[in-house]
């Protein structure tokens, strides 16, 4: 399954989420290639149940950890872990319940825009200005390195071209 396949899986399972990170950057026009999907999700109880069930079906497991360690994927694991870095049957998936520089899911959702794929999947991605705020706030080298491209994109969009 591809990155967009994972997005389809999340939307089909009625997960309330916003795509952040590299995939959101690509939706806005960035050119960097990313092979993982980062999402911010609602901590509403029913949403956590649906998300945990889907991740269980996808055999989600902590990324970078030797296989075989007992691991429970359920609502409590999501509640106890504000950030999860997972590997699944379909690729790498990072889950955050809030985004640095933006806020909790309500703020992230409010700062997002709806986009659609060529086969009709509609989902939310973090807006470009908020994505820039998030990259600035995170202060990781990897994120700071992406700032010039995102700032240039913002300027090109503002100038209409």
């Amino acid at each position, binding site marked *: 399954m*591809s*990155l*967009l396949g994972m997005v389809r899986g999340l939307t089909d399972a009625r997960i309330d989420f916003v795509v952040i990170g590299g*995939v959101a950057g*690509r*939706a806005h*026009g*960035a*050119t960097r*290639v*990313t*092979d993982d999907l980062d999402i911010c999700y609602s901590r509403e109880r029913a949403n956590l149940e649906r998300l945990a069930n889907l991740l269980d079906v996808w055999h989600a*497991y*902590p*990324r*970078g*950890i030797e296989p075989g*360690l*007992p*691991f*429970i994927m359920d609502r*409590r*694991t999501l*509640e*106890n*872990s504000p*950030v*999860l*870095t*997972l590997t699944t049957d379909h690729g790498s998936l*990072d889950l955050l319940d809030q985004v640095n520089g933006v806020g909790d899911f309500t703020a992230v959702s409010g700062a997002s825009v709806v*986009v*659609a*794929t*060529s086969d009709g999947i509609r989902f939310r991605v973090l807006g470009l200005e908020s994505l820039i705020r998030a990259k600035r706030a995170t*202060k*990781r*080298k*990897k994120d*700071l390195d992406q*700032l*010039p*491209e995102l*700032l*240039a*994109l913002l*300027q*090109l*969009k503002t100038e209409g*071209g």
Partner: protein
Amino acid sequence: AWGRAATLLERAAVGAEWRVEEGEISLVVDRLRFLTRFGTALSLAKSGRFEVRRGRPAAAPPSSLAGAERYGVDLSLLRQSLRLTVAERLDRLDADVEFFRGLRFEAV
């Protein structure tokens, strides 16, 4: 110390519980929950997600297009990308990922 231990265990959210029975104090830990918590924390530590740039503060990223170009951003690629629809950009991402996955497979 007991109080502190209880607070730490609660914060760790590993399903630990103190039991006092017939003069004995025991600590019962949900082993699966503990290992799940350990695994997620270790994965997060290895991912570098909370890695913060060390040393002097980074210079402000270039705010002009010329500055971005000097930084190494290919503006022609960005302009080309902006001419595509969002759906086309996302399709290209999937194609790029497939391409790089293929390259990795070939390398192995």
